[in-house]
């Protein structure tokens, strides 16, 4: 059994479905999650899969409850074992009173836990095809939760709405068969999960799609990428909407081309973005510097996965932060934003375009597999808040006499007049240059242009999202996090409150320029602080040391490819708090 001291809510349920890769486990799981959310509940998914199309072990986990569920948690209440391996691998994760659904024709029941045998294959074949066995299991899950079938039936129908009606019918039948079987043969529910009537409708969305929605809302006109997990689904999102929303989407020949294309697209005044993972970004490094010296307004999503090199392609890590902060030769201003949850993905994405335009310099959104690929239920996104601030740009008509693309200004920003504008003669240049843009090697001009560019960092400080503080004012322990680790840390924070340990959390949302003052205030204003992050060397912590000359009291790091566990954070935080 999962050992932990976390005060798990008794109202929520944790479900895990495991089986062989290539059998649609994720799709089934998401169908289930949608059923819950449409019934007014909240969910948080966690999918784990290997870098294979078939074979290997796939797991879909979903946590569901009437209150918001900020992250995955450890114990499993209902385990759906689509093969024996799943039982072997996950038996020790079962919580109190958990049950294991399995097909007795394929697997043995769990030793020392409640087994719920369901003839998955048989029911599936009866319903139409063996592939529906997952759906049978979903019905069985609902029965174990004493949950009504209707939301799942609706979800199934929606999932298969673009297929022949027989498919949906068959799946509904399959789900019902599983449901009825369990009600009859294993009627005692594991827990009673109750729909919330009249709850506000929610989205069920993954981080990349939320980023995509933000970019679309911001008026993106060009998206280029080369597929790379876990950034790939953003390419799919953009491509799916290329015609209905009017975006030129280019699956480029490589990441170098993608980034250079985006710089070219930005040159025409188009809102342009590319997305990749750390390895692809490594290949974009040179062109990222081009964007810096050319003063291109570009947005880049870097969704991290464990490196080095090909690393663990389908797992998660937060170990590319320093790479992105220091990518490319020379020095130039850049902004790095790290959304900490799905809602922030949307908000930071559209803000990134405003920032890029206002600053005429690259803006990076840093996510990771955990946030990019997993879905959570979130309130409907605030599209009304979206602004489009193009900054100092001329896109049509004339620009005044003596136009100078790189005029040295007080805030570092010069007027961009894009090609097509009359009078917009210029030389956008990868060489350092004079105010017109001609290559220039004069020492004084070099200083002037280098300092002009760097002044934008000061301007940026006033525009970027500030660090966010959550939790108790009188905290005895403070967590400092960035990016996706915000989610499990938020869960830990809730538990700490429930346990009577006053705690708070600082989410560093903008990593560059680094908000040193706010971090100092947080550290100095909290008796004990600890940094929690998903890497081995403590990259955020090193930034705190560098910029604040301060050392938090402790740190918790994870680098085995898995997201930080809220249970682990809770335990360490309690320990740190008790030192005070």
């Amino acid at each position, binding site marked *: 059994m999962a050992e932990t001291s976390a005060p798990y809510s008794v109202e929520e349920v944790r479900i895990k479905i495991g089986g062989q890769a290539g059998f649609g486990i994720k799709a089934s799981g998401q169908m289930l999650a949608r059923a819950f959310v449409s019934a007014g509940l909240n969910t948080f998914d966690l999918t784990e899969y290997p870098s294979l199309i078939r074979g290997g072990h796939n797991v879909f986990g979903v946590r569901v409850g009437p209150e918001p569920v900020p992250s995955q948690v450890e114990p499993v209440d209902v385990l759906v074992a689509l093969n024996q391996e799943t039982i072997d691998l996950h038996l020790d994760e079962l919580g109190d009173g958990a049950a294991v659904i399995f097909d007795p024709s394929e697997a043995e029941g769990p030793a020392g836990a409640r087994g719920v045998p369901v003839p998955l294959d048989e029911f599936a074949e009866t319903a139409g095809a063996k592939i529906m066995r997952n759906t049978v299991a979903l019905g069985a899950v609902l029965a174990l939760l004493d949950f009504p079938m209707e939301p799942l039936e609706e979800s199934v129908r929606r999932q298969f709405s673009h297929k022949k009606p027989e498919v949906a019918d068959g799946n509904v039948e399959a789900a019902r068969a599983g449901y009825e079987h369990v009600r009859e043969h294993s009627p005692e529910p594991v827990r009673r999960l109750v729909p919330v009537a009249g709850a506000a409708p929610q989205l069920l969305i993954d981080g990349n799609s939320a980023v995509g929605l933000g970019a679309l809302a911001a008026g993106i006109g060009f998206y280029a990428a080369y597929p790379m997990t876990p950034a790939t689904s953003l390419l799919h999102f953009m491509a799916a909407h290329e015609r209905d929303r009017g975006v030129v989407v280019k699956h480029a020949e490589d990441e170098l081309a993608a980034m250079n294309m985006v710089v070219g697209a930005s040159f025409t005044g188009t809102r342009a973005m590319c997305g990749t993972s750390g390895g692809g970004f490594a290949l974009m490094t040179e062109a990222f510097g081009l964007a810096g010296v050319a003063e291109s307004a570009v947005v880049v999503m870097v969704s991290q996965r464990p490196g080095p090199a090909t690393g663990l392609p389908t797992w998660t890590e937060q170990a590319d932060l320093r790479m992105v902060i220091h990518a490319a030769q020379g020095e130039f201003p850049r902004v790095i934003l790290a959304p900490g949850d799905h809602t922030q993905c949307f908000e930071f994405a559209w803000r990134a375009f405003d920032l890029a335009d206002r600053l005429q310099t690259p803006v990076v959104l840093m996510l990771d597999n955990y946030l990019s690929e997993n879905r959570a239920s979130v309130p409907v996104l605030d599209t009304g808040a979206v602004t489009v601030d193009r900054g100092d740009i001329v896109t049509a008509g004339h620009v005044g006499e003596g136009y100078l693309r790189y005029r040295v200004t007080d805030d570092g920003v010069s007027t961009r007049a894009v090609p*097509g504008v009359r009078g917009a003669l210029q*030389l*956008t240049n990868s060489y350092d240059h004079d105010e017109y843009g001609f290559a220039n090697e004069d020492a004084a001009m070099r200083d002037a242009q280098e300092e002009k560019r760097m002044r934008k960092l000061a301007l940026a400080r006033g525009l970027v999202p500030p660090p966010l503080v959550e939790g108790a004012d009188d905290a005895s322990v403070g967590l400092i996090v960035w990016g996706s680790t915000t989610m499990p840390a938020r869960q830990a924070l809730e538990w700490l409150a429930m346990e009577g340990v006053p705690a708070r959390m600082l989410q560093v949302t903008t990593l560059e320029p680094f908000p040193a003052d706010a971090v100092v205030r947080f550290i100095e204003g909290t008796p004990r602080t600890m940094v929690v992050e998903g890497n081995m060397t403590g990259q955020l912590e090193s930034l705190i040391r560098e910029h604040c000359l301060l050392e938090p009291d402790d740190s918790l790091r994870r680098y085995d490819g898995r997201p930080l566990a809220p249970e682990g954070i809770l335990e360490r935080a309690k320990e740190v708090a008790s030192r005070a």
Partner: protein
Amino acid sequence: MPSLKDFEESVKRPTWCPGCGNYAMWRALKHALERLGLDFHEFVVVWGIGCHGNGADFLRCQGFHALHGRSLPVATGIALTNPELKVIVEAGDGDAYGLGLGHFVHSTRRNVDMTLIAHNNQIYGLTTGQVSPTSDHLMKTVSTPSGVLEWPVNPTGLAIAQEATFVARGFAGDIEQLTDLYVAAIEHPGFAVVDVFQPCVTWNKVNTFKWFRERVYKLEEKEGYDPTDREAAFVESLSTFHDLVCTPDECRVPTGVFLRIEGEETYQEGLEQLDGPMWRKAEAPRDVTAVMDEYLT
């Protein structure tokens, strides 16, 4: 419309070595622009890094001096987001056929409406005379003192093998033909490749003006040559593979239009959503309600 002189006004004077083939290419481009009657706001020129790229300082225009080897993707980004601009790329042989070779072939099969002018001096000029991808087999350079072991890149052959719709070769010793080729290339709808032999008088002592003068012949003057015949064009492209000692009789070098296929769809034409400059999409926040609704449960 701007005339020859306007393209030179208020820019720097060329700093190429006296006698460099880049001068003729510079002149031919200005002539072509004048002849095409393009106004300043109607075209963009993108340069790579190299001696050829220094030309970015010598032409008055809407210009982009990109990275070494990456001028084609930058130009693609421009061409795919503003259909109202003519896009011209000036690249070196190192640039276009060395580290940029992948982009070159992919641009060809993509048929993006833009023009590539390659300054093929068969040497790395700006970095003081190393082997280039088009240097002759066995040529000795500072980075290959025992002689180049590779065979040269065959740019026209690669383009022809890769479904190019316009492939031509010029020679800096013939400004008139060059100008014609530029005009035809820029007018061609689709990706137009003009590979230009541009003798580097400082570092390449083999492929000199004289060397070429003794060897070039014009395809348009060749009896029965049909520039829509891909196989014939391929055969002509094989002239790339000569060796250092070949006599003027042995190795003949064709110039002119190798291949011209009309009526192929350009990449831009395939993009329904490209209904004008793409910056227009960001004139106000885009309505994403319908897209968001797909995630509603």
